């Protein structure tokens, strides 16, 4: 298996992991909203805040790999999300969840998580496709 194959295999795994984080976020938000398990917003925010930066870092790392391996299409697909994340984490620093505002901003957060989920899902299949293409072209 050549470099491209390995790269997209890694990307598939990353996308799967990111997919799971998004699902996790959505579940947590729904729990908070329904209040069924009596989720404390302070604990919830502390818990979720631990995952925000790693998630964004993972995504940025993937983009870096695409850049280094000259995968322009893959990089282009990820660029908007990367820009959005950089703006949020580095420039405006609004990436953490604020327990005092969480109930007011909950719908927004849920919406964002759903969009991320959709994006990761699509990119998952794209990476899978690219991996298979790479494997086939190698074996030929």
């Amino acid at each position, binding site marked *: 298996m050549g470099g491209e194959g390995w790269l997209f295999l890694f990307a598939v795994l990353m996308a799967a992991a990111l997919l799971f984080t998004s699902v996790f976020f959505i579940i947590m938000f729904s729990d*908070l*909203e*329904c*209040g069924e398990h*009596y*989720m*404390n*917003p*302070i604990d919830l925010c502390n818990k979720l805040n631990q995952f925000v930066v790693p998630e964004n870092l993972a995504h940025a790392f993937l983009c870096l790999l695409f850049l280094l391996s000259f995968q322009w299409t893959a990089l282009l697909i990820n660029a908007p999300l990367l820009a959005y994340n950089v703006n949020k984490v580095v420039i405006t620093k609004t990436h953490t969840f*604020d*327990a*005092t*505002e*969480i*109930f*007011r901003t909950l719908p927004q957060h849920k919406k964002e998580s759903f969009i991320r989920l959709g994006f990761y899902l699509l990119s998952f299949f794209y990476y899978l496709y690219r991996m298979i293409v790479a494997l086939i072209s190698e074996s030929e």
Partner: protein
Amino acid sequence: MSQQNDLPPGWIAQWDPTHQRHLFIETTSGHQQWEHPLETAGGPLDATVAPAPAPSGHGKRRAYAVGQTHAYDGAGEVAPYPDAAGYGAPVQPGMGGAPAPLFTPGLANDQFAAQQQAAQGQGYYGGSEQYPAQQPAYGQQQPMQYPPVNQLADQFGHMGLGGQKPFALHTANLVATPPNPLELLMPPPEIRLPPGASITDSPAANADPSYMRSTINVVPTTYQLLNKSKLPFSLVLTPHRTLKSAVNSSVDDPPVPVVTDTVIARCRRCRSYINPYVTFIDGGQRWKCCLCSMSNEVPQMFDWDQARNQPGDRWSRPELTSGAVEFVAPTEYMVRPPQPLVYVFLIDVSHAAVQSGMVATATRTILESLDRIPNDDNRTRISLIAFDTALYFFSLTPGSTETSMLVVSDIDDVFLPKPNDQLVLNLTESRAAVETLLGRLQEMFQDTQIIGSALGPALQAGFQLASTTGGKLITLSASLPTLGVGALKNREDPKILGTPKESALLQAGSPFYKTFAIECSRAQVSVDMFLFAATYTDVASLSCLPHYTSGQTFFYPGFNAARSEDAIKFAHEFGIVLGSQIGLEAVIRVRASRGIHMSAFHGNFFVRSTDLLALPAVPPDQNYVIEISLEETLTTPFVVFQTAVLHTTCFGERRIRVITLALPTTSNISELYASVDQIAVATFLANKAVERTQANKLEDARDMVQKYVTDILGAYKSNMTGGGGAAAAGLAIPTNMQMFPLLALGLLKHVALRQSSQIAPDLRAYAHSLLTTLPSQTLIPYLHPSFYSLHDMPPECGTIGDAGVILPPLLPLTSERLVKHGLFVIEDGQTIFLWVGRDSVPQLIMDVFNLPNYEALRGGKYTLPILDNPFSQRVNAIIGKIREMRRGPYYPALFIVKEDGEPPMRLWALSALIQDRGDQTPSYQQWLGQLKDKLNGSSYN
């Protein structure tokens, strides 16, 4: 009183000072009406309005020599000077001279009152309409006229104190109807529940509006209907209000009845508390919940009188007769035994604080208030930490007067120098030591030269002291926190004021104040902030702590205790806060009938769950606003809202205060409009605007207010007046909302929101904190100040009437009412302006200020002397009444504003006259014009 004698048997008359008229009550049925019973019955009323007795001498009122008037008048004509006119305007010949048919100058007070009452049966304006001679300016120079008496009386009929007539919606034309400030004192539209809704038919089945009121007193059955009307739907709550009556200052409102037998009937499914709107089924063995229709068992002891150990009367239980009730909670409602009251004082002792006299005033006030701090169970504990760039702890020995000071200068990692229990002491046991310490604190630091403030570390230390029990951190800070955690930068930059960037200054400058607030809220610690500063102190960041820990913020810009006015104001407010009966470790939950959902919350608390508000402390007279959304179609004839406040009283009892409000439902949009409570709508809008400012920008908040007004007017126009046509000439609004556009304009012109590059961010931030915490009774004057004329007030004003000191009639908020020789009061509950005209007669200045003439008078903060003349005493009585008539700890400072005095002072006072045109803000008429153009322009046709 004669009024009593004129009544048919079975009726009593009750003086209602809010409306300056009598309320007539039929004792047998409890029926109330404004009209005199004989009048409504068509009885002969002529007798009661017969002309008053002939003038009987000038009595004790003050007359001014003709010479004075003459000198002041300037025009060689000696005008007849009607005694009652006080310092009136030059009287026009042929107008003031002729005695008015109804008013007779010089009547003794009680005679006069009788006469006044007699006239009151006729209409709302009886009180002011009958003094033509006293108010020469009235209706003469002013284009503005109150609507005729009959019309208003008519409206009163519709406000409905009668039976089950359907809601009559009356449309007013805003452009043609000048705003009438008296309308702000009217009760909200009546709640007309279907007969038999309440099982006990008690008049108190619905809580008083001061506890809980709704923006609309009828609930639309569908979301679409609410949306179509564009009306906001929210509840305005003040569950812990003080009992100070809004109506009569000499009598308190009845306290909330307490259920002491710990029999608490709650619905199994929705956990709501039993209330007057449940129904008993199965012969009284079970009750059906009015919120979720669940059938529940009646508790065994429900019909047992435990106090007398005999069967009791179910129908007399307070929870079935009263909409506001308090249950003593059994141990199931406690996570831990009720906590004692713990006050930790954090006192800034840096150079600025000591020099301004804050330390001395604060310690003296605490010392004087030690007996008023709630301590019925002798468990109250207090502690004191002083801080500048280091922290100073005080270890006291119970029973002796010894104190030792412990200095902690490591502010990066705060630790307690001694165990908790040696620093937080029982107030009763350590009283002597506490008194010595407070007496000496000022002395200890009086020569300090230290500049800088480690407020953050001091808060952390205070938190460590209080967190084991929960309690209150009372913080007094006189400078910007500069050291340790929570240090803030001076963000104030005159260049960005008035620009979109300004909004950033109104948001917290350091995340510490939010994260720490959350920690506090968790440990049941509440923080009160008293901020004193000569310069920028970042109220926006510091007020975050009280905001999320349910404390209160007080701000004293430029505080200097050498000015007695400053010292008195602070000492008064601080004393009230210390002495108030607060609740502790509280949660608030609002439940409602099925299909109704609480969607957003405004006020000082932490939202712990979608419908649960956490409050480490519940100060009295705090306001909370809860937005409501409709999720299902309502099928019941009425719906019920129930607020429950589980709290620990400051005497160590766990209690649940339950406030119940039932509102009828409707599918008719005109009933919806007819039931709008404009006071509640304005309260909601103020809270919403502040939230918008803090989340977005000031412009967004202003646009939002504007949009609400346009939307409501537009929706009303298209739904109720059939759009365009004849109605296009004016601006249609339901009569019960006539003051709403002016209140909204008051909000837009308020220091909290006004477009201006002159307003210090600290003042804005403080105004925001007030807008979100003041109860409606205090909030409305804050948006729409009260304006009185003193020089020509009717003679009974300033004297004690049936309900305390009688205030002069309210004037509309326009400077057209100011006259050069006049003396006026403009007050918004936080400040009182005494406006002195430049041509005031020397005698007036002498009588009120004890100064020879207008030139000798200086503008600014002032203490009014109490002089040995009736006019001075009346003016003082009025100022005194203004200071104490509203709920809340605030003590408005008095400012003298000279007509030709310093421009900033004058502009400040005149900015309270919200109907006038401002710097960048339109006048009321212009604004209505803008609204009209907007409505006629586009989408609302």
